[in-house]
C-alpha cells in the first residue's frame, strides 16, 4: 500500500528546474532512500512534501489526501514530520521545550484555557510533559531536558531533532541526511535506531542519505535523482550495479568504486 505518491511533480525556481517530472511511490511501513549528487533536488522534494514549497506541476498524495496547496501546519496534522539537513532546532529553547513544541499539533489549550487555568489545560500540560520526558528517554537524552539545544553535542542534537519530529506522532517521517558528520559507530547506532522506528512504531521512513552503507544497509527501496530527474529506482543491490547511477556519482569509468560500498 502506497502511503505517499508523487505524480509528475515539478518544482521550478525561475529557469532552474529543481525537481523534474518526478514519479515516486513510497510503500507503507518501508524504509525508502532517496539518493543523488548534491543539487539533485532531494531536499527540494522534501520541501514540496511538507508544504514549504508548492510544486508548479503535478500532484503529491498522502494516503489519498492531496498535499499540494496545503500549509505546513496542516500537513503535519495529517501525519508527516521531518528533520533538516543542517539541524534546525530552536537553539535558545531547552531540549524539553523543543520536544514540547513538537507536540503542539496534538495539544489543544487555547488562550483562555491557559489564562483561566482551566483543569483541562493543566491536565494537558502534565500529560505533555510526561510524553516529552518519554520521548527524551526514547532518543537517549534522558536527564538532558534542561540543556539549551544549542549547547548539546552534535550527536545529541541530531537525536533531539528526531525526537521533536516524533513528538508530532507522524506516520511518515522524512529524515534529511541523519548521519551527516557521524563516525562509523554513531552511524551504525543511527541505522539501528531508524530500523527500530519502523519495526516498533510502524513509521514509514523516507531517507535522504549520502553514506552508501546506510543506504545499502537499511533501505528496501532506493530512488536515485540527478538534476531533478529520477534516473533509477530499485533495491539497493540493483542500484549498486546500475551504470547510470555510477556515472552520476563518480563520473564515467568508475564502476569498480561502487563494489566497495
Amino acid at each position, binding site marked *: 500500500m502506497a502511503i505517499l505518491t508523487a505524480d509528475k511533480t515539478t518544482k521550478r525556481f525561475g529557469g532552474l528546474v529543481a525537481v523534474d517530472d518526478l514519479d515516486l511511490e513510497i510503500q507503507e511501513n518501508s524504509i525508502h532512500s532517496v539518493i543523488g549528487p548534491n543539487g539533485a533536488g532531494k531536499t527540494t522534494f522534501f520541501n514540496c512534501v*511538507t*508544504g*514549504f514549497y508548492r510544486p508548479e506541476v503535478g500532484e503529491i498524495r498522502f494516503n489519498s489526501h492531496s498535499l499540494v496547496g496545503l*500549509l*505546513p*501546519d496542516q*500537513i*503535519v*496534522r495529517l501525519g508527516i*514530520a*521531518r528533520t*533538516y539537513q543542517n539541524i*534546525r532546532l*530552536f*537553539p*535558545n*529553547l*531547552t531540549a*524539553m*521545550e523543543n520536544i*514540547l*513544541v*513538537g507536540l*503542539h*499539533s*496534538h*495539544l489543544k*489549550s*487555547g*488562550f483562555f484555557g*491557559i*489564562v483561566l*487555568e482551566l483543569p483541562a*489545560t493543566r491536565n*494537558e*500540560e502534565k500529560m*505533555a510533559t510526561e510524553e516529552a520526558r518519554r520521548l527524551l528517554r526514547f532518543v537517549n537524552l534522558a*536527564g*538532558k*531536558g*534542561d*540543556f*539549551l539545544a544549542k*549547547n*548539546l*553535542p552534535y550527536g545529541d542534537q541530531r537525536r533531539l531533532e528526531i525526537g*521533536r519530529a516524533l*513528538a*508530532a506522532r507522524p506516520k511518515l517521517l522524512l529524515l534529511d541526511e541523519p548521519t551527516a558528520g557521524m563516525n562509523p559507530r554513531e552511524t551504525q547506532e543511527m541505522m539501528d535506531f531508524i530500523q527500530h522506528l519502523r519495526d516498533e512504531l510502524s513509521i514509514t521512513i523516507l531517507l535522504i542519505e549520502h553514506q552508501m552503507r546506510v543506504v545499502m544497509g537499511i533501505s528496501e527501496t532506493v530512488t536515485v535523482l540527478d538534476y531533478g530527474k529520477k534516473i533509477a529506482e530499485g533495491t539497493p543491490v540493483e542500484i549498486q550495479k546500475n551504470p547510470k547511477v555510477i556515472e552520476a556519482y563518480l563520473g564515467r569509468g568508475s564502476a569498480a568504486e561502487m563494489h566497495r560500498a
Partner: protein
Amino acid sequence: MNKSIWQNGIKIGLIGGVSAVLLALIGMVEAFSQRDIISNVISMGHTLLLLVAVFMGYLAAKRTTRTEPLWILVNSLISGLIVGGLVALLVIVGSLINLRKVFIYAMPILYELLTFKQGTQIGIFLLLGAGALSGTLAGLFFLSPQIIRRVLIASLGSIVVAGVLQDLLRPTFSRWGPLAIINEWLFTSNGLTVYGAIALFILIAAIIYFWARKGGAVRTGLHRLPPAGQRALKVTSLLLLFFILFALPQILGLFLSEVLTIVGLYVLLGLGLNIVVGYAGLLDLGYVAFFAIGAYTMAVLTSPELGFFSLSFWGALPVAIFMGVISGVILGVPVLKMRGDYLAIATLGFGEIIRILVLSDFLRPWLGGAQGIGKIPKAHIGGIEFGTPQSIYYLILAGCFLVAFISVRLRDSRLGRAWMAVREDEDVAQALGVNLVATKLLAFATGAAFSALSGAIFASKLSSVYPHSFNVMISINVICLIIVGGMGSIPGVIVGSIALVGLPELLREFAEYRLLVYGAALVAMMLLKPEGLWPSEIRRRELHGEVSAGSEPESSASNESSRS
C-alpha cells in the same frame, strides 16, 4: 618591547580622558555639581569624573597582558594619569582660549570646579595626581580578592546611591517618626554627612562581608528545609512583598507616589511589549499606538466635553481594551509576512499613523484635534474616587498584578512555546503545527490589549489626553526598558521601568541629558550584561554560555525537578 605592555593603558586612558573632557564640555559635570554626595566633601560632578578615572583604571588593569601585579598597577596608574592629564589639558586650553564660542558650557565655573578652586597652576597637578591615584586604586581593586571587591563595591556604591537618591530618601525617612532621626544624622540639606557616610560604609561593608562568609551556609540551610518549610518561606516572602507594595504610597508620600504611578504605567506597557518582542520576537516600534487608542477610547466614551457617550471609567475600560485587541489585529494582518527590520519600520509607521490621526483637524469633531479631550472623569468604586496619586497607584498596581499573572501563565504554556518557536525559527515552527497567522495575531492583540489598558488608566489619571503625549519616544522608552531590564523576563520589566523611568523623575539633573544617559546605559548594558539587569533564566544561559550545563549530566537531573 616594553612599550606594548603600556599600549593598553595608554589607549584606555586616552578614551577615558576624552570621555571626561566631553562630559565636562557638555555641561554634565557642572550640572551634577549642584548636588553633593558627601556634603562639602565631594559632589556628584566630581564623583562622575572620579568614576571615569577609576573605571578606566580597572579596564587597563584587566587588559594588561602581563600578570605580575607591578605591571598591572603601573598600567592602571598610567591610564588614570592620562585621564587626569587630558582634563588638565582642557583646563590649560581653557585658560588660553575662550572655548565658549563653540562649547557653551565651557564657562569659568567649570574650570573652577575642575581645578578644585585652586587656580590653573595647582589645579593641573591636582588633576594629574587625582587621576593617577584613582587609576592605581582601581588597579589595587582589580588585584584584591573577590570578597574585598564585593565589599568595596557594595559599601562605596551605597554611599553614591544614597547621595544620588537623597531626594527620595530624605522625605521618606522624615514621614516616619523613628526614622526621621536617621535623616538628621545621615543627611544635610545637600548630601550625606561625613559621619553618615562613614557609618553607612561600615554598616554595608559588615553586612556584605558576613553575607559573603556565612551566606552560603544560610542558603544551603534553606535548601535543606522540608518542602513544607520551603513553601512557608516562599509564602511569607510573597506576603511581605505584597505588604510593602500596598504600603508604598503611604511610606513615600505624594510626589513619590506620583513617580510610582508613572513607573507602573510603563510596567504595564513593558509587560505587553514583552509578549510581542520578548516572547514572539516581533519587533514592534509603534507600540505607542495602542496606548493612544486605549487612552482616546476612554476619553471619547467618558468625557462630557465631547458628549457622545457618558460611560463610567469601569464601563469604558473593557471597551478600551477591546479596541486595543482590534487594533492589534489590524496592525498584525498586513505585517504577517514581514520580518526583522521591515517589520520594525512598518510598525513604526503604524504608531505615527495613529498619532497623526488623533492630531488631525479632520477627526477633530470626534477626537478633539490638537486641543485633545479634557474633563475625563476619575474612576469610582462605591464612594471612593481614584483621584489622588496614591489611589491611582492602587488601580495601576491591580492592573500590573493582572497583567503579570497573565504573562506568566502564557509563558509556560502551549501558546508561549509557540511564540518562542516562532521567534527562533518560524518555518520550523510552522512545520511542527504552529499556525503562524493565529499565533502572530494573538501576540499583537495581547500586547495591544495590555497597552490599551495602560492608556485608559493614563487618560483617567491625567483627566485629559493630548495628541502630543503619544509620540514615538514612548515606544522607544518601552523598548529600552525591556532591553535594559531583561527581555522576556517579568521582574526585568519592573527593574527596567524603575531604572529608566523612575530614576530620571527623581534625578532632575538628568533631565537634560536623559537621551545621552539612555544611550550610554544601553551601550553599557550590551557590553556588560546583554541579558539585562534581571534576565529570564533562558536569556542568562543564552548569553553567558552555559559551559557547565554541557558537562555535568548528573546535576541536570535535579535541575529538571527544580524548574518551575
